[in-house]
Protein backbone atom coordinates (compact mmCIF):
# COMPACT_ATOMS: atom_id res chain seq x y z
CA UNK A 1 0.00 0.00 0.00
CA UNK A 2 1.32 3.43 -0.82
CA UNK A 3 1.08 5.52 2.33
CA UNK A 4 2.61 8.97 2.22
CA UNK A 5 5.46 8.73 4.75
CA UNK A 6 5.33 12.41 5.68
CA UNK A 7 1.64 12.03 6.45
CA UNK A 8 1.81 8.80 8.41
CA UNK A 9 4.70 9.94 10.61
CA UNK A 10 3.45 13.47 11.35
CA UNK A 11 3.35 14.56 14.97
CA UNK A 12 -0.23 15.78 15.00
CA UNK A 13 -2.28 14.49 17.95
CA UNK A 14 -3.93 11.17 17.19
CA UNK A 15 -7.31 12.33 18.47
CA UNK A 16 -7.42 15.12 15.88
CA UNK A 17 -7.29 12.69 13.01
CA UNK A 18 -10.56 12.14 11.16
CA UNK A 19 -12.02 8.70 11.70
CA UNK A 20 -14.72 6.90 9.81
CA UNK A 21 -15.98 3.80 11.57
CA UNK A 22 -19.14 3.32 9.56
CA UNK A 23 -18.06 0.89 6.85
CA UNK A 24 -21.39 1.21 5.05
CA UNK A 25 -20.66 4.81 4.07
CA UNK A 26 -17.61 3.68 2.09
CA UNK A 27 -18.26 3.01 -1.56
CA UNK A 28 -16.28 0.16 -3.09
CA UNK A 29 -15.47 0.79 -6.78
CA UNK A 30 -14.31 -2.21 -8.80
CA UNK A 31 -10.62 -1.24 -8.61
CA UNK A 32 -10.89 -1.10 -4.81
CA UNK A 33 -12.59 -4.50 -4.80
CA UNK A 34 -9.77 -6.10 -6.80
CA UNK A 35 -7.25 -4.40 -4.53
CA UNK A 36 -8.72 -5.52 -1.20
CA UNK A 37 -9.22 -9.05 -2.56
CA UNK A 38 -5.54 -9.04 -3.57
CA UNK A 39 -4.64 -8.22 0.01
CA UNK A 40 -7.06 -10.76 1.51
CA UNK A 41 -5.91 -13.56 -0.81
CA UNK A 42 -2.24 -12.74 -0.10
CA UNK A 43 -2.95 -13.20 3.63
CA UNK A 44 -4.89 -16.44 3.01
CA UNK A 45 -2.01 -17.87 0.95
CA UNK A 46 0.41 -17.04 3.76
CA UNK A 47 -1.83 -18.75 6.35
CA UNK A 48 -2.07 -22.03 4.42
CA UNK A 49 1.69 -22.41 3.85
CA UNK A 50 2.13 -24.97 6.70
CA UNK A 51 -0.77 -27.07 5.38
CA UNK A 52 0.79 -27.14 1.90
CA UNK A 53 4.18 -28.16 3.32
CA UNK A 54 2.58 -30.86 5.47
CA UNK A 55 0.64 -32.37 2.56
CA UNK A 56 3.75 -32.24 0.38
CA UNK A 57 5.84 -33.99 3.03
CA UNK A 58 3.22 -36.73 3.49
CA UNK A 59 2.79 -37.25 -0.24
CA UNK A 60 6.55 -37.64 -0.68
CA UNK A 61 7.23 -39.88 2.32
CA UNK A 62 5.80 -43.25 1.19
CA UNK A 63 3.31 -44.91 -1.16
CA UNK A 64 0.86 -45.50 1.71
CA UNK A 65 1.05 -41.87 2.81
CA UNK A 66 0.62 -40.78 -0.80
CA UNK A 67 -2.61 -42.79 -1.10
CA UNK A 68 -3.76 -41.29 2.19
CA UNK A 69 -3.19 -37.75 0.91
CA UNK A 70 -5.00 -38.55 -2.34
CA UNK A 71 -7.99 -39.94 -0.40
CA UNK A 72 -8.06 -36.89 1.88
CA UNK A 73 -8.01 -34.55 -1.13
CA UNK A 74 -10.73 -36.67 -2.76
CA UNK A 75 -13.48 -35.94 -0.20
CA UNK A 76 -16.09 -33.45 -1.48
CA UNK A 77 -15.67 -31.03 1.44
CA UNK A 78 -11.88 -30.86 1.08
CA UNK A 79 -12.29 -30.47 -2.68
CA UNK A 80 -14.49 -27.45 -2.03
CA UNK A 81 -11.87 -25.94 0.30
CA UNK A 82 -9.23 -26.70 -2.34
CA UNK A 83 -11.30 -24.79 -4.89
CA UNK A 84 -11.55 -21.82 -2.54
CA UNK A 85 -7.79 -21.90 -2.08
CA UNK A 86 -7.26 -22.25 -5.82
CA UNK A 87 -9.45 -19.18 -6.39
CA UNK A 88 -7.37 -17.25 -3.82
CA UNK A 89 -4.22 -18.18 -5.70
CA UNK A 90 -5.65 -17.39 -9.14
CA UNK A 91 -7.02 -14.02 -8.04
CA UNK A 92 -3.76 -13.05 -6.33
CA UNK A 93 -1.84 -14.18 -9.40
CA UNK A 94 -3.90 -12.23 -11.98
CA UNK A 95 -4.25 -9.13 -9.79
CA UNK A 96 -0.48 -9.35 -9.15
CA UNK A 97 0.27 -9.48 -12.87
CA UNK A 98 -2.05 -6.48 -13.34
CA UNK A 99 -0.03 -4.69 -10.65
CA UNK A 100 3.23 -5.41 -12.48
CA UNK A 101 1.73 -4.20 -15.77
CA UNK A 102 0.61 -0.93 -14.19
CA UNK A 103 4.03 -0.48 -12.55
CA UNK A 104 5.52 -0.27 -16.04
CA UNK A 105 2.76 2.25 -16.91
CA UNK A 106 0.54 -0.07 -18.90
CA UNK A 107 -3.25 0.34 -18.72
CA UNK A 108 -3.10 3.11 -16.12
CA UNK A 109 -5.90 5.47 -17.15
CA UNK A 110 -9.08 5.13 -15.09
CA UNK A 111 -11.14 3.65 -17.94
CA UNK A 112 -8.51 1.05 -18.79
CA UNK A 113 -7.86 0.27 -15.12
CA UNK A 114 -11.57 -0.42 -14.57
CA UNK A 115 -11.55 -2.68 -17.61
CA UNK A 116 -8.49 -4.68 -16.47
CA UNK A 117 -10.08 -4.99 -13.01
CA UNK A 118 -13.04 -6.74 -14.61
CA UNK A 119 -10.68 -8.94 -16.63
CA UNK A 120 -8.83 -9.92 -13.41
CA UNK A 121 -12.07 -10.83 -11.58
CA UNK A 122 -13.37 -12.85 -14.55
CA UNK A 123 -10.07 -14.69 -15.13
CA UNK A 124 -9.84 -15.65 -11.44
CA UNK A 125 -13.35 -17.14 -11.45
CA UNK A 126 -12.86 -18.72 -14.89
CA UNK A 127 -9.65 -20.53 -13.87
CA UNK A 128 -11.43 -21.80 -10.73
CA UNK A 129 -14.38 -23.09 -12.79
CA UNK A 130 -12.02 -24.90 -15.18
CA UNK A 131 -10.31 -26.53 -12.19
CA UNK A 132 -13.71 -27.49 -10.70
CA UNK A 133 -14.69 -29.20 -13.96
CA UNK A 134 -11.37 -31.07 -13.98
CA UNK A 135 -11.81 -32.12 -10.33
CA UNK A 136 -15.38 -33.43 -10.66
CA UNK A 137 -15.54 -34.61 -14.27
Amino acid at each position, binding site marked *: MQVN*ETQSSCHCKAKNRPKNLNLFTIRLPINALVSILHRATG*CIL*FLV*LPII*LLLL*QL*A*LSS*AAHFERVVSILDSPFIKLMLLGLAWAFFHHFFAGVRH*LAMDVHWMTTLMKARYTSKVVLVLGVLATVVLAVKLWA
Partner: protein
Amino acid sequence: MMTKLLTKRYPGMRAWLMQRLTALIMAVYSVMLFIRILILQADSYEAFLDFFQPSWFRIASWLFWISLSIHAWLGIRDVFKDYVPNMQMRSVLLKILVVLLWVYIAWASWLFVRK
Protein backbone atom coordinates in the same frame (compact mmCIF):
# COMPACT_ATOMS: atom_id res chain seq x y z
CA MET B 1 20.46 8.49 -11.84
CA MET B 2 17.60 6.18 -10.95
CA THR B 3 20.05 3.73 -9.33
CA LYS B 4 20.51 6.22 -6.48
CA LEU B 5 17.02 5.21 -5.39
CA LEU B 6 18.24 1.66 -4.70
CA THR B 7 20.76 2.61 -2.01
CA LYS B 8 20.20 2.20 1.74
CA ARG B 9 18.87 5.76 1.94
CA TYR B 10 15.64 4.66 0.30
CA PRO B 11 14.64 1.33 1.89
CA GLY B 12 11.06 1.70 0.63
CA MET B 13 12.26 1.62 -2.99
CA ARG B 14 14.24 -1.56 -2.30
CA ALA B 15 11.23 -3.21 -0.67
CA TRP B 16 9.02 -2.19 -3.58
CA LEU B 17 11.47 -3.57 -6.15
CA MET B 18 12.01 -6.82 -4.22
CA GLN B 19 8.24 -7.39 -4.02
CA ARG B 20 8.06 -7.02 -7.84
CA LEU B 21 11.12 -9.20 -8.50
CA THR B 22 9.88 -12.02 -6.27
CA ALA B 23 6.38 -11.72 -7.77
CA LEU B 24 7.88 -12.16 -11.23
CA ILE B 25 9.90 -15.23 -10.21
CA MET B 26 6.84 -16.81 -8.58
CA ALA B 27 4.65 -16.04 -11.60
CA VAL B 28 7.09 -17.77 -13.98
CA TYR B 29 7.44 -20.75 -11.63
CA SER B 30 3.65 -21.09 -11.21
CA VAL B 31 3.04 -21.23 -14.95
CA MET B 32 5.83 -23.81 -15.31
CA LEU B 33 4.34 -25.87 -12.45
CA PHE B 34 0.83 -25.87 -13.92
CA ILE B 35 2.09 -26.95 -17.35
CA ARG B 36 4.22 -29.69 -15.74
CA ILE B 37 1.26 -30.96 -13.70
CA LEU B 38 -0.91 -31.05 -16.83
CA ILE B 39 1.73 -32.87 -18.90
CA LEU B 40 3.02 -35.41 -16.37
CA GLN B 41 -0.32 -36.47 -14.75
CA ALA B 42 1.45 -37.86 -11.67
CA ASP B 43 -1.35 -40.03 -10.25
CA SER B 44 0.74 -42.75 -8.57
CA TYR B 45 3.41 -42.53 -5.87
CA GLU B 46 6.16 -43.53 -8.32
CA ALA B 47 5.02 -40.95 -10.85
CA PHE B 48 4.89 -38.34 -8.09
CA LEU B 49 8.50 -39.13 -7.07
CA ASP B 50 9.55 -38.86 -10.72
CA PHE B 51 7.76 -35.51 -10.87
CA PHE B 52 10.01 -34.42 -8.02
CA GLN B 53 13.23 -36.10 -9.17
CA PRO B 54 14.96 -33.68 -11.63
CA SER B 55 17.46 -31.44 -9.85
CA TRP B 56 16.49 -28.43 -12.00
CA PHE B 57 12.93 -28.78 -10.67
CA ARG B 58 14.15 -29.00 -7.07
CA ILE B 59 16.39 -25.95 -7.52
CA ALA B 60 13.54 -24.02 -9.18
CA SER B 61 11.18 -25.01 -6.36
CA TRP B 62 13.72 -23.93 -3.78
CA LEU B 63 14.22 -20.55 -5.50
CA PHE B 64 10.43 -20.22 -5.64
CA TRP B 65 10.23 -20.80 -1.89
CA ILE B 66 12.94 -18.23 -1.14
CA SER B 67 11.08 -15.70 -3.33
CA LEU B 68 7.83 -16.57 -1.60
CA SER B 69 9.39 -15.97 1.83
CA ILE B 70 10.77 -12.54 0.91
CA HIS B 71 7.48 -11.65 -0.83
CA ALA B 72 5.33 -12.76 2.11
CA TRP B 73 7.59 -10.96 4.60
CA LEU B 74 7.29 -7.63 2.73
CA GLY B 75 3.57 -8.15 2.06
CA ILE B 76 2.46 -9.16 5.55
CA ARG B 77 4.71 -6.44 7.02
CA ASP B 78 2.76 -3.88 4.96
CA VAL B 79 -0.50 -5.35 6.23
CA PHE B 80 0.71 -5.04 9.85
CA LYS B 81 1.85 -1.46 9.20
CA ASP B 82 -1.67 -0.63 8.04
CA TYR B 83 -3.76 -2.44 10.65
CA VAL B 84 -1.64 -2.73 13.82
CA PRO B 85 -1.02 0.79 15.11
CA ASN B 86 0.34 -0.40 18.49
CA MET B 87 4.13 -0.52 18.04
CA GLN B 88 4.81 -3.18 20.67
CA MET B 89 2.11 -5.43 19.30
CA ARG B 90 3.40 -4.86 15.77
CA SER B 91 7.00 -5.73 16.62
CA VAL B 92 5.90 -8.94 18.38
CA LEU B 93 3.82 -9.94 15.34
CA LEU B 94 6.74 -9.15 13.01
CA LYS B 95 9.05 -11.37 15.07
CA ILE B 96 6.55 -14.24 14.92
CA LEU B 97 6.28 -13.71 11.14
CA VAL B 98 10.06 -13.89 10.66
CA VAL B 99 10.41 -17.02 12.82
CA LEU B 100 7.58 -18.76 10.94
CA LEU B 101 9.08 -17.91 7.54
CA TRP B 102 12.52 -19.23 8.58
CA VAL B 103 10.95 -22.45 9.88
CA TYR B 104 9.09 -22.86 6.56
CA ILE B 105 12.34 -22.22 4.62
CA ALA B 106 14.12 -24.93 6.64
CA TRP B 107 11.19 -27.31 6.13
CA ALA B 108 10.91 -26.62 2.39
CA SER B 109 14.70 -26.91 1.91
CA TRP B 110 14.61 -30.30 3.61
CA LEU B 111 11.76 -31.43 1.32
CA PHE B 112 13.34 -30.14 -1.89
CA VAL B 113 16.97 -31.11 -1.27
CA ARG B 114 16.91 -34.53 0.40
CA LYS B 115 17.65 -37.79 -1.48
